[in-house]
């Protein structure tokens, strides 16, 4: 045994050997590592601590750089930590702080070791323990070692003291009650003459204040003193951060610190400090005009620098100012817009944010137009950033900024066609949202949807699928605004639609269904009106007609204005109409053929749809199959029930009325307005009696255990186009089917091509249509890009300069909003309970709690919490407890507090002499005062906790 140990010791490879070996290795890194690991596993079991520690060091190295697991060596790390030799101890500590976490089991073993090292006379050992504690401190460790930290906080060795200060952050975070013990010493260190201790203390307060600023308001005088006196930039930056948090809470404080901060801003040569001053001013002191002016001037300096870092920070600072002082952005708009073509993506992004911040009702059209053009030339990533920010800016607060929805809807269409567009989801939801909210935008929306649907090139781009789904839905839902429903139907059944994923095809099918119903219904109501003129059938349908009359009127109202308003658009429709004329039908029909709903066209449409849909009735996708069958069923019924109509429209049989009723019914169902639904709608539905919602469903699991849940996508009837993922296998099958289908419908295809030849790719000759999306525009060279930016500067300059509101020909259409806050319900941010404990403890200390009592009992916290309940008998105590509640909720009892602060100002001095002998800091003055008042009130149990803001400000 001893022999093997000494052999290991003598021939053990050191860390350096390992690293050298790694660099020279010929056998491949992973093999080398596993070999080394094997070695380490053997060596680490050695009884010799030296060998063990070297093995551990090698393991630490491998873990750090090569992500080798070292959790198994936790116990060995503990062993090394307990070595008496510094070198081994250090290796153990480094390994522990690198690999231990909350769930490491051996953590329980190190408490005593840490305690021993913390109290060691060797400052380096103490420092090792502190570093380790800062990294791995748990609740237990923090609790058990608080006394040692407390001692070290006033250590005479600066080296140890500053580290122990750093550790308090972790200790407080894990174990808030440590605040009661250590806080006073920590505060004392704010007055430390040693710059390192001061820096560390301020660092701790900076972190603490970031979590809960209000608790640290009473320390403002100390921070203020540092702000004015210190010349150490590291410290100043941290103090500025603290004031950035405190100033918004206390206006008097903000007023007081503004001047020193501006002074620093003017004086300092360090950019980091200057930037921190700027940020503090724009974030927290933005009500002080002169300070903001100075800050903006400094920002301008940053923007004009060549250093990309400073430029970036300048833009960043501008974007913080923007919401409150837009003028600052407008002043620098040239730089901002030029940065849009910067080579650095981060800078571009910042400037894009700023450009969007400058957008107003009057400039939006122009800016969006230019940006969309710019997006065409940008790289894909930035292009989508642009599109994304346009979309979110325009949609903000229910399209508040959009005046002209026809423009916006066509902009959405234009954005969809941007080659790099990947914003399918957003555009989809906005297309539908606008459709539902803005009635006036619907005709244009249908037009845009049509142009999207009809373009076969778009079908191949998976990013646009969602948009097409929205377009399909829109065209089905608002088909009554369409100029030519037949065209829409044909676009929806075009053969390339088989490229779409199943969920979107399902939307297509549903839209076809709606369009069919609409067309047939329109046709039937025409023929029926026609029939109305013939006295002999009048009687038989008079009852129906009387019911129908208003609906019809509405339908025609919706339909005619578009047709009459744009007679030139009728050309294509007249083609269909002319066929009808050719048949030599009665002249009466000519008037109706204007709408395109003739016997011929309807029959044609039905045939067309039937041929295209038929193969889908064998689809493997349930959703498609079901909808296809629905459509086929409808066509079947129509064909069977209306032969008379198709042969001779003059004959109106009794049975046809059945069909009429049916169609009417469906049409009514579809034309019912769909509105936006409030987010909170569900909550307002009363829960029916006898329905237990909170019942545990666990037992249901057992029953349903073997029942496999169907995939959500194929059954979600309500919104089939959400969250679908295309299943490659099924779509292959489907496309096979579809190719069969297209063979069957060659003639149909030919006809379609004849009509929309424009949209077919030239490769159609060989029968296969390429699925490739046309290649994106090449990026232009830098010069032209530069030119573009120049243009852009000019353009935006114009659009920004023209401040007057353009006179819109028509008023802004109504945007449907739900009365009661439709926006996402604001859930009050629940603070972490640990934070609450921490800030509670800090407040207790700072606001003059009975420190003795609390520090003596670890259960102090619970006790305090219980107090208000215990002391209900006493009216006075009730009031106090009320006080406490309100303060813990951070109430705004400012005037009250102020007054108290003022009146007690004089007393302060005297009490200082009485109570302040042992402690120096101001917080302890308050502590003393509080104590005396307590005595006067005679209530020892409940301590009034109204936070007292010191009156140093006045």
């Amino acid at each position, binding site marked *: 045994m*001893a022999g093997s*140990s*000494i052999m290991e*010791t*003598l021939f053990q490879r050191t*860390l*350096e050997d390992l*690293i050298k070996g790694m660099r020279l290795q010929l056998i491949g890194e992973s093999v080398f590592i596993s070999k080394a690991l094997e070695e380490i596993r053997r060596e680490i079991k050695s009884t*010799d601590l*030296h060998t063990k520690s070297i093995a551990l*060091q090698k393991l*630490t*190295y491998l*873990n*750090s*750089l090569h*992500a080798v697991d070292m*959790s198994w060596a936790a116990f060995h790390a503990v062993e090394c930590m307990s070595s008496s*030799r*510094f*070198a*081994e101890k*250090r290796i153990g500590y*480094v390994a522990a702080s690198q690999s231990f*976490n909350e769930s490491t089991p051996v953590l329980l073993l190190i408490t005593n070791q840490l305690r021993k090292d913390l109290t060691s006379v*060797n400052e*380096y050992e103490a420092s090792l323990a502190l*570093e380790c504690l*800062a*990294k791995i401190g748990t609740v237990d460790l923090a609790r058990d070692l608080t006394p040692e930290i407390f001692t070290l906080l006033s250590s005479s060795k600066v*080296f140890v003291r*500053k*580290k122990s200060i*750093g550790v308090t*952050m*972790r200790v407080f975070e894990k174990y808030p009650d440590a605040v009661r013990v250590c806080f006073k010493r920590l505060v004392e260190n704010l007055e430390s003459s040693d710059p*390192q201790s001061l*820096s*560390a203390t301020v*660092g*701790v307060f900076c*972190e603490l204040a*970031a979590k809960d600023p209000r608790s640290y308001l009473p320390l403002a005088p100390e921070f203020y003193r540092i702000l004015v006196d210190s010349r150490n930039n*590291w410290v100043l*930056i941290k103090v500025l*951060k603290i004031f950035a948090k405190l100033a918004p809470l206390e206006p008097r404080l903000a007023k007081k610190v503004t001047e020193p901060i501006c002074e620093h801003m003017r004086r300092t040569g360090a*950019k*980091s400090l200057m*930037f*921190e001053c700027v*940020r503090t001013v724009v974030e927290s002191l933005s009500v002080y005009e002169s300070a903001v002016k100075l800050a903006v001037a400094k920002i301008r300096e940053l923007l004009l620098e060549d250093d*990309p*870092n400073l*430029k*970036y*920070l300048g833009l960043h600072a501008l974007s913080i100012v923007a919401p409150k002082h837009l003028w600052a952005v407008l002043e620098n708009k040239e730089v901002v817009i030029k940065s849009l073509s910067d*080579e*650095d993506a*981060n*800078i571009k992004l910042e400037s894009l944010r700023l450009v969007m911040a400058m957008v107003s009702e009057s400039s939006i059209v122009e800016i969006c137009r230019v940006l969309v053009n710019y997006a065409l030339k940008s790289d894909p990533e930035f292009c989508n950033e642009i599109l994304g920010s346009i979309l979110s800016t325009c949609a903000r607060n229910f399209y508040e900024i959009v005046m002209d929805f026809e423009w916006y809807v066509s902009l959405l269409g234009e954005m969809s066609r941007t080659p790099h567009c990947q914003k399918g989801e957003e555009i989809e939801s906005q297309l539908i949202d606008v459709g539902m909210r803005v009635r006036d935008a619907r005709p244009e929306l249908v037009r845009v949807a049509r142009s999207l649907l009809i373009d076969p090139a778009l079908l191949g781009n998976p990013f646009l699928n969602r948009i097409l789904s929205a377009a399909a839905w829109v065209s089905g839902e608002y088909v009554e605004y369409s100029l030519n429903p037949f065209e829409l139907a044909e676009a929806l059944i075009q053969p390339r639609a088989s490229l779409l994923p199943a969920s979107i095809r399902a939307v297509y099918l549903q839209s076809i269904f709606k369009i069919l119903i609409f067309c047939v219904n329109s046709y039937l109501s025409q023929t029926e009106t026609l029939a109305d003129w013939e006295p002999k059938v009048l009687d038989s349908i008079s009852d129906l007609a009387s019911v129908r009359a208003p609906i019809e009127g509405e339908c025609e109202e919706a339909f005619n204005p578009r047709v009459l308003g744009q007679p030139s658009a009728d050309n294509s429709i007249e083609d269909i109409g002319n066929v009808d004329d050719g048949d030599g039908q009665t002249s009466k029909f000519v008037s109706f053929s204007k709408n395109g709903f003739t016997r011929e066209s309807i029959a044609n449409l039905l045939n067309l749809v039937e041929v295209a849909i038929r193969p889908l009735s064998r689809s493997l996708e349930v959703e498609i199959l079901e909808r296809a069958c629905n459509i086929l069923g409808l066509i079947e019924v129509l064909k069977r029930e209306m032969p008379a109509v198709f042969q001779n429209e003059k004959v109106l049989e009794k049975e046809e009325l059945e069909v009429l009723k049916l169609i009417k019914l469906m049409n009514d169902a579809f034309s019912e307005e769909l509105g936006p639904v409030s987010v909170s709608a569900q909550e307002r539905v009363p829960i029916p009696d006898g329905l237990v919602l909170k019942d545990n469903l666990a037992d249901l699991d057992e029953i349903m255990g073997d029942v496999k849940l169907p995939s959500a996508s194929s059954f979600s009837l309500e919104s089939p186009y959400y969250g679908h993922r295309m299943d490659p296998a099924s779509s292959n099958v489907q496309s096979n089917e579809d190719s069969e289908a297209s063979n069957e419908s060659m003639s149909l295809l030919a006809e379609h091509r004849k009509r929309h030849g424009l949209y077919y790719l030239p490769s159609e000759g060989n029968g296969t249509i390429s699925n490739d999306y046309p290649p994106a525009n090449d990026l232009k060279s830098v010069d032209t890009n530069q030119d573009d930016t120049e243009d852009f500067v000019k353009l935006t300059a114009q659009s920004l300069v023209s401040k007057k509101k353009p006179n819109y020909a028509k008023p802004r259409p109504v945007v449907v909003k739900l009365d009661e806050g439709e926006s996402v319900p604001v859930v009050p941010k629940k603070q972490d309970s640990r934070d609450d404990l921490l800030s509670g403890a800090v407040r207790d200390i700072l606001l003059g709690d009975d420190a003795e009592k609390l520090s003596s009992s670890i259960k102090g916290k619970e006790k305090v919490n219980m107090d208000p309940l215990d002391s209900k008998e006493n009216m006075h105590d009730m009031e106090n407890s009320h006080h406490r509640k309100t303060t813990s909720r951070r109430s705004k009892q400012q005037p009250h507090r102020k007054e108290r602060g003022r009146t007690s100002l004089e007393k302060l001095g005297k009490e200082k002499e009485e109570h302040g002998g042992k402690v120096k800091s101001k917080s302890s003055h308050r502590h003393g005062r509080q104590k005396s008042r307590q005595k006067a009130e005679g209530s020892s149990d409940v301590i009034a906790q109204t936070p007292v803001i010191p009156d140093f400000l006045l």
Partner: protein
Amino acid sequence: MIHFVLLISRQGKVRLTKWYSAYPQKERTKVIREISGEVLARGPKLCNFVEWRGLKVVYRRYASLYFCMCINQDDNELEVLEIIHHYVETLDRYFGSVCELDLIFNFHKAYYILDELLLAGELQESSKKTVARLIAGQDALVETAKEEANSISNIIAQASK
């Protein structure tokens, strides 16, 4: 506060990692991959800040090494650049015109120096002189221990255990 420190070579090799926030082992590997992807891809004349997962990575290149530190959004980026520079200067003072090889072979020493500089993700020591003194003190401790361990009498004592 600084969440972690990474040293990555231009070839994407990791030279040093130090985690101040809790990241499990798997997450660490992922983070390193993401950060090196982001940082190494950036050209020379771009700014030194990268937004990453709601945090900010401040990096700076020295010769073939990228020093990366990850901070909160509202931390001062320029200050962190200073910290990086401070660290490099300290290394330089310790090794005497430091190069990547120094850090490769003295991995642990770079680590100890960083520990003197930063604690719990905050700057602890802004004086290069002090850091040098502290490290020298610890080295001396280690040296005496090593001498002791390597002395022949010690080896004999072990062998005869």
